[in-house]
């Protein structure tokens, strides 16, 4: 286990975090139903994502024993509608959290992929917020828009799918998912979560132009000054500041 702050913990190699004061597991970008949607368009991607997500949640629950789960957006994949494959996995996921992990409270921050999901709120029993919400000292927001709330000491964001691109000695590129941790210009802390989705390898934050992907990098946040905490095999690896990784090749 690794402490990000006194109140925030990371678990070995998992793309999610635990907030003690809220007794909450926070994760992001699950994109449930992903393969089903792909298959309906002619790419028969084997199903793995949901199984992997359940395994990770199981591990996290064992490590932290939380009673609440917050998903910071993009629990499903489709913009236009709720695909039947998505609904099946979504329903199963909620049931899994309740029955297998004993989670009492499920909170969903709506992301750009989460349209039309409100209609299941009552039937499945979860709370839902559009774009952002403040809980305790934390402002949770998805990230495809700028955060509006001025409250909280720490911002928690998803959406970006951060990762670091590294090259091995013969020049073969590998991507490692990472958390980004730093401060925005008003002094509040910010942590950006890696994607839970198995298929999202991530965006190379040391190579790509992030301002196009998340507006926060346009005005409030310098990625070079953020620390990259990468997901290793059962451990979290501190890679230091992104700015320094940029020069690495």
């Amino acid at each position: 286990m690794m402490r990000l702050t006194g109140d925030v913990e990371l678990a070995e190699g998992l793309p999610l975090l635990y907030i003690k004061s809220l007794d909450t597991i926070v994760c992001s970008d699950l994109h449930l139903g992903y393969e089903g949607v792909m298959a309906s368009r002619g790419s028969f991607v084997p199903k793995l994502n949901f199984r992997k997500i359940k395994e990770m949640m199981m591990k996290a629950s064992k490590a932290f024993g939380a009673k609440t789960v917050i998903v910071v957006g993009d629990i499903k994949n489709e913009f236009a509608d709720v695909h039947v494959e998505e609904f099946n996995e979504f329903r199963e996921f909620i049931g899994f959290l309740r029955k297998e992990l004993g989670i009492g409270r499920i909170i969903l921050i709506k992301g750009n992929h989460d349209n039309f999901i409100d209609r299941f709120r009552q039937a499945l029993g979860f709370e839902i917020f559009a774009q952002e919400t403040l809980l305790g000292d934390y402002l949770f927001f998805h990230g495809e828009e700028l955060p509006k709330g001025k409250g909280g000491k720490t911002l928690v964001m998803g959406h970006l799918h951060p990762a670091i691109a590294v090259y091995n000695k013969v020049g073969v590129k590998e991507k490692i998912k990472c958390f980004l941790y730093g401060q925005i210009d008003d002094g509040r802390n910010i942590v950006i979560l890696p994607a839970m989705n198995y298929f999202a390898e991530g965006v190379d934050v040391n190579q790509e132009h992030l301002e196009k992907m998340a507006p926060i990098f346009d005005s409030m946040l310098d990625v070079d000054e953020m620390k990259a905490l990468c997901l290793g095999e059962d451990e979290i690896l501190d890679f230091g500041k992104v700015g320094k990784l940029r020069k690495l090749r």
Partner: protein
Amino acid sequence: MIEYYKKPFSRDESLGSLNFYIRDWFEKRYRNPTPPQLYSFKLIREKRNLLITAPTGSGKTFSAFMAILSDLMDIAEAGKLEDKIYCVYISPLRALNNDIYRNLNEPLDEIYKKLGGSVKRISVAIRTGDTPQAERQRMLRKPPNILVTTPESLAILLNAQKFSENLKSVRYVVIDEIHELANNKRGVHLSLSLERLADLVGSDFTRVGLGATLHPLETAAGFLVGYGDDGKERDCYIIDATWDKKMDYQTMCPVSDIVNASDDKIDESIYKTLNSIIKKNRTTLIFTNTRSGTERVVYNLMKRFKYGEEHVAAHHGSLSRESRLDVEEMLKRGKLKCVVSSTSLELGIDIGSIDDVVQLGSPKSVTRAIQRIGRSGHRFSDVAKGEIVAINRDDLVECAVMLDSAKKRKLDSFTIPRNALDVLAQHIVGMALMKKWKIDDAFALVRRAYSYHALDKKDFMMLIEYLSGSYVGLESRRVYAKIWYDANEGAIGRRGRLTRLIYFLNIGTIPDEVSVNVYGEKNKWIGSIQEEFLSRLKPGDIFVLGGRLYRFDHSREMKAFVTRADTKIPTIPPWFSEQLPLTYELALEIGRFRHDLADAIGKELRETKGITALLKNRKFTGGKTTQEMLDAMPMDKNTKSSIISYFAEQLLFAKHVPNDKLILIEKTNDEKGERNYLVFHSLYGRRLNDALSRLFAIEASDLFETDVGMMINDNGFVLVTDSSLKISKEDISRLVANVASSDATRIIRANVRRTEMMKRRFRHAAVRSFMVLRNYKGRQISVKRQQINSELVMRAAEEISPDFPVLKETYREIMEDVMDLPRAKEILKKLKDGEIAYQIIETQVPSPFSHVMVTFGEADVVMMKDRRRHLRELHKHVMQQISKRYG
């Protein structure tokens, strides 16, 4: 049994075997049968399987069809000709289909004019992707007696519920241009179609294969006929008429001093040489190895000698179909003086009469050289004339040995992809769509095809599992499964409403060829490259685009990202993916030649005043042995003198000339001292060196704890490291020992895993296996989308099993078809056992034999000027060293 048929029948026996009317027409038209026809008329009439290889002008088509038409005419005369298909003709090229259609109807028209209406007309029809719907409907109602088609259309017809009924009557199958099919997945696909057709017919038919020469012909015949259920190859006679046509060819070097001649002088001499050949002949065909080279030659010929568009034209794959057809038409009418082509005119399209074939740069294979030169001399009695014009010393040696091998009839061999699982997946889906199959019956059918004869039942079952959707839960199989499979019953069959549509819309083996946009800093668009070239790039590779140098960083989807690299030297030439690799047999042959010639020249240098002659810039002409050796080979004077000084310089400078049994490992650096080179003179062809260089680079980077760059070509490879790195001879020995005893397959597999090659080739395999579709429910899916999705599929497949069929096939294709890992492993074993020796040398500047290698990235089609300058500098350095030492 497969055997050569060596004794031709007499003229009377041959003609006597034909139907009266057919014979009458043939005799009036041609009088005498050509050599291949003296075998084929009678043998095909006896319904023997036949493989006929012969050059252009040998009457190949009629050698197959006169006998078949005779059979049909007999039937027609007996009043028994029905509206069903008796013969299927398959060629890889639609253009060829039109030629055949014309060539068959011509005798039929004339014969039936004479016959009047008394005998039923033998009908011929073309069926390709271009055939209009109305025509198809007509064909379904009234099938032709002879169906002219392509491999892809045949596969579709086999699955057409109604039309396939018409195929049950097939007695003959003719496969044309078999040399273009036997060595690739398209041919593998066809071989399965043939077995499915035989299964449909209920018995085997007479199979006739036609083509230019290839080697070994026994393998090509095996590919044609496949295996019987007794596990033995079906019978087939081979008729090899390749050598019955006289050929005259030589290697030419346009200038007397290839190293010191000025750029302009070399250019001028090349085009002068070309023009003198063009002027001597009515029509000349020039092959360049790349498309851009084709354009450049046409441009120069027009500019320098005032040829117009009506005299000189280009013909290559990047041109539109119409302009290619225009050029073909002009050729047929004998209007063009000269046509310049990359590879597109290799196929046997009817292009009229060609008097001379010039090859600019090495064709890289003896067989290909013969195939190309064989395009000239329209009639069989004409002499086929050809020249290879080469302009660097490695190429001169290569081409000289190549044509010498041709003279000695030592051809290099082709290989057929074996057990390709992606192609098989397509056919299993096709088979299951038609009926319910017992697994064992389906497996037996597949094993009748040559490329699948050794297929493992385990692999077959893994494919069945994959296709039946076992990799997803039951509830999703409705979407994922392409076939129905009952393990208890041991049977497969059709499944899913959409599968049929998927099959028809996604059939085929040729991957979509697309270009990839290249972006520089700040996402600025720079230009585009072919995807095939991208798949050859490794991060750090430097290449030329739009006249500037860029370093490749990474790719995403269909975009490549680069940074400017102004000071560096390119490591990979832009045509790398277009250039065919040197064949292994020819490489060994060159290695043996190097050994023998170096032996002779070494002695002669010591015995004569050779060294002084060389140093005083008077030509060292070699002694008697050298002269005799080279005089026996087809080359001109300039080539001879260039080769002699090349070997002499190498011997004086480095003491060693690498050969087939000696790998020279040369530790050296670039002239600026910026980079260290470790040059491996391993002349085994690029496919082997691709594998070898990776193994050495990986081991070197571990051993010396440093970044290692690579340059690869046919003659060897170069490991590039930083100049600060100090390596001793002992270190190099250790490197060799470690690599020689390593688990090569495992290391290559791990290394390939995250490369561009893997990403791209996996998409091809996934598309062929119907895992990622090109077209779904009639909607075209962009290549970019296919690429993104197949990368996801790949990750998931890796998670399921390293032996997931699509994954396994991709690795097989890369390791066996793109690289030649099996032979690379043989070389390593020989290195370990001492059967192949290695020698480590250290040089101040690269030795002459490494010059082409270290400047390889700079090489352009007709040589870029920068590279020539660089080569010349290197040469100057070497000569200074030699004169310091001996002078």
